[in-house]
């Protein structure tokens, strides 16, 4: 943070942080579901909220589109898709 209280991280860092928070929350959701299914230790989803579960910390679902997060996701997926080997044509598949 700067002295003026503004976030001085670059947009990519903020996007990665926002994405990481969302993913961690989703994983915690799954862990809670597993606990419920296996041991019924936690109350059903309908009677607790993320903010009072005590496991999530401060998690607020973003309102609207976070364009930095979308741009980051798109860039990483483009990178992964760019690494896909083109398929050989069928007539070469039996070649040794």
């Amino acid at each position, binding site marked *: 943070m700067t002295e003026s209280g503004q976030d001085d991280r670059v947009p990519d860092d903020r996007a*990665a942080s926002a*994405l*990481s928070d*969302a*993913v*961690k929350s*989703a*994983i915690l959701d*799954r*862990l809670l579901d597993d606990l419920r299914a296996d041991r019924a230790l936690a109350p059903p989803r309908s009677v607790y909220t993320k903010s009072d579960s005590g496991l999530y910390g401060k998690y607020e*679902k*973003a*309102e*609207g*589109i*976070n*364009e930095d*997060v*979308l*741009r*980051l*996701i*798109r860039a*990483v*997926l*483009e990178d*992964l*898709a760019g*690494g*896909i*080997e083109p*398929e*050989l044509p069928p007539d070469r*598949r*039996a070649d*040794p």
Partner: protein
Amino acid sequence: MMLHHLQTRGGLTLRDLTGCSWSGPVHEDVTEIHRLTRVLAADRRGAPARAARRLTADRVPGRVLDIGAGLAPWSLAIAAASRDVHVLAVDLPEQLAALTEAVAAADVSAQFKTMAADVFTSDLRTAAGYDLVIVANVCHLFPASRTRSLLIRAADVLAPGGVLAVIDQVLDDPPDWLQWAVLYAVGLPQVMPGGYLHTVDEYVTWMADAGLVAGLAIPLSAPPGLSLVSARRES
């Protein structure tokens, strides 16, 4: 635990992330992300042909054992390489009808035999042994100790010079956290199996414990992808 959850099943959806309704105007990036997730998921469909090319590159294996064959996509791809390939596809009794149907549909029944067996209890040894034993999409069903014993049993039926090929999702540890966060965020781990994931190093160690010499360790599809880990019995 967090690492395992990140790399199996689940994930957010684009709607979770964006609040975007598909019926309304869609942000350009969302459209492109949606397309890219389909490209990455579709890349898995080419994995059996890629594995077959790798596993037949040095020599065509005449005798193949497919353990936990399912619908036998991996051994079917290898059988397509040559009519000299003969496969024994093994699975549990309740899977056998679907397996037999898949083999017939591929028009390679003459190259295949099927057998109902539990690989943990059945004796699969033959006098000559197998040139290739495939354990594909099986190991994630079992924890480490059980997987290790499965691989030792699989190695035991190899002929001298034969290859044991494990095909499965491997645990990426340490992972590229940003990459996995993105894959998880768009729900791509939903195309992956749940269960137990093991690292390449674990597979290599278990194969060495089974007396095999390390071979390939390569990805077969784009992340979140399947990998091929193989090892050879010395001639």
